[in-house]
């Protein structure tokens, strides 16, 4: 018994160590700063309902960012995730039959896994394949729902209004997302293989492992996260819109990078990514609280992102030398 509890303590300790490791520190600092600024400008928000409304849309970006993170684990990049989330959104809103909608969503996940296989077999750069795929998802979305609209199942929109005690639902979602991502990549033995493929596929092959399987799994995981994000989007907005995913792709890349992830090398942090997604989400709200004109918001948000990344580059260089 003592042994088990010590092991639990060790695991909790290592989880904490991952949280506090240098990679995700920046996202923690950024999140605290943004939260302090928001609460300072709008003190009323610092309570249950305020936080719930403030973070209302955050589950969409959180799961989109996790999807992007799984792709980046393979040292790839996904330019199609935004329009994929929008496609899921219109499938949920536009296909009335639950059976058909579920089948369509399963096909979406399979499509993602297949995209991974295609990139592996043809040795194509993911940036090209996913750029092409983004138009495929957009086209499919427009076929399902040519104009914004549709109906979202009542149970889904009801589920989005749930009010768990003490902790607002979006915060709960963020915590669960962190935990799941961390468990999959850092606590399971399969997660080790998944991270290995991004850093040295040759080493993995020499160890007798299939890099095809690993890459397909990462893409399928990304597809699952994309579906979750799209379902959240449908439930929260209660409509479908094939064009809604436009800004999402680059925000998701930003979230992964703020969270300590790297473009190459299989280096990502699920905990950091979720916090990065919250930072991206909140900085938008912050700008509107500061009455920055909407037209300026994109540029300012982009500027903040560049600043954070610049800071990270400088601090890393200092660590290295």
């Amino acid at each position: 018994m003592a042994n088990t509890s010590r092991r639990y303590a060790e695991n909790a300790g290592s989880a904490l160590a991952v949280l506090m490791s240098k990679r995700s520190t920046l996202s923690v600092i950024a999140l605290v700063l943004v939260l302090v600024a928001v609460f300072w400008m709008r003190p009323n928000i610092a309570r249950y309902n305020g936080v719930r409304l403030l973070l209302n849309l955050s589950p969409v970006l959180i799961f989109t960012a996790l999807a992007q993170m799984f792709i980046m684990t393979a040292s790839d990049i996904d330019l199609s995730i935004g329009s994929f989330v929008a496609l899921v959104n219109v499938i949920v809103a536009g296909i009335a039959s639950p059976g058909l909608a579920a089948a369509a969503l399963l096909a979406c996940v399979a499509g993602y896994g297949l995209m991974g296989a295609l990139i592996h077999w043809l040795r194509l750069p993911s940036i090209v394949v996913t750029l092409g795929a983004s138009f495929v998802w957009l086209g499919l979305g427009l076929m399902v729902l040519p104009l914004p609209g549709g109906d979202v199942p009542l149970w889904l929109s009801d589920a989005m209004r749930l009010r768990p005690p003490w902790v607002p639902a979006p915060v709960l979602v963020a915590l669960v997302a962190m935990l799941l991502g961390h468990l999959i990549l850092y606590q399971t033995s399969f997660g080790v293989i998944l991270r290995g493929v991004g850093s040295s596929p040759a080493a993995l092959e020499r160890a007798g492992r299939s890099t095809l399987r690993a890459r397909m799994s990462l893409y399928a995981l990304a597809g699952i996260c994309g579906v979750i994000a799209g379902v959240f989007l449908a439930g929260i907005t209660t409509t479908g819109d094939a064009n809604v995913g436009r800004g999402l792709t680059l925000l998701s890349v930003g979230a992964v990078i703020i969270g300590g992830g790297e473009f190459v090398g299989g280096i990502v942090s699920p905990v950091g990514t979720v916090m990065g997604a919250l930072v991206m989400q909140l900085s938008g709200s912050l700008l509107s609280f500061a009455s920055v004109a909407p037209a300026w918001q994109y540029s300012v948000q982009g500027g903040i992102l560049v600043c954070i990344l610049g800071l990270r580059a400088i601090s890393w260089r200092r660590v290295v030398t």
Partner: protein
Amino acid sequence: MAIQRTDGRAADEGALLALRGISKSFGPVQALKQVDLEVRGGELLGLVGHNGAGKSTLMNILFGVTSPDRGDIILESQAMDERYGPALAHRLGIRCVFQELSLCPNLSAVENALIVHPSLEGTGWKRRAKSLILTRLHEIFPGHGIDVQTPVGNLPIGQRQMVEIARAFTESNNLAKVVILDEPTSSLDSSAAQQLLRFLQRTVLDGKACILITHKLTEVLNFAQRVVVMKDAGVVADVSGAGLSRERLFTLMGSVERAMVTPEASSFAGMRRVDVVGNTGGPSELRIEAGETVGLAGLAGHGQKEVLHRIYAASRSGRDKGCRVTGSAAYVSGDRQREGIFPLWSIASNITIASVRSLSRGSFINPVKEQRLAEAWREKINIRSKSVLQSILSLSGGNRQKALVARAFATDAEIILFDDPTRGVDFDTKRELYSQIDSASRSGRCFVWYTTETDELFLCDRVYVFHEGKVVDSLVRSELSEERLLQASFHEA
């Protein structure tokens, strides 16, 4: 070529692993021809030979990374079919320690141990993998002090090498029966290297076999029970390690048949082109005169390329005080794919890219002049193609290399820097290149030629031998001999 065999034991008896008539070519280059090798349990086998003798290819074939063109791999008296690959090799107990490390840098030592042992998976894998790798590390390198939880990319190279070695000896359901180590001590300090060699000696006592590939002949002489010598893509000697002397090993490795014309001495002597001063500021370490061909020898990766890069940089900027260069330089790399050809361009553009300034008026290239220049060099250097306007990719590897040489020759550079330009080029093409070099040096050009082929050094007027980034010996052509080169390369003169 008769194989010298002195150990007298019957072939195949109790062999854990045997290779029969293995041949492999990469394009025009034959990497292995008709290689036979067997390894018995309880044996520590040393495998030595020059760069490019085929040792690494042999190892890749043993491990199933590359498949042979012909021949059989026999493991415990069973011939392997085309399904043989790293996964099966692992299951059958074949392990490799590769020269370029084969660990995932973002994973910890524990996680890297896991990926070679599928049977460790499931809850508790961290604990099992950790005890597995730590046990071996303690056993092989007592007092190693390695953090097995940190990503191995953060460890210094010596510790990474230790992790890789220890991992090759870990056993779960997958046993380690034959372990092949390619230059395992290259990044270990001497005490860790001794620890490893003593461990290898101990571990073969319980029936394992180890193949030690190394350039450090002392290791082979002191520790190997049997020594296999490879040369020119084949096994040339298979002798007992007991009583083997260094001199005899040198003789076995040397004596390449020579089939080249030796060029006449040039008449441009006296005009200094390059003068590299030693790092310590001491006497002139390396100097090259007009019309001279200077060879850079020694084992691969001992600083020859760095000198070429330094001379090139100095010819452009002239700011390097330790390296004075008179005249301009052109660089030809043997690594065509990575630092040579522009794959989407025509042969003509590939040849003339280094000379665009002389072909242009203002900012515009004169296409007629460009084509004429390319055409002239195509004929001079005998590039086999219908037209210089065809894609560079329509040429064979050897002819692509000729186009790169033509690019350098077409410039007005007085100094041509060769970075192993005949790598992967067939014999006829080589001979054509040699005669081009000969005639160009008659007209006053000088060549700095890094080559991994000993034969080519005999074409040079002077050879500098490198060891660990420094020139350790300088030989004029009349002093040049295979033995002298080897001894200087291993710095054991």
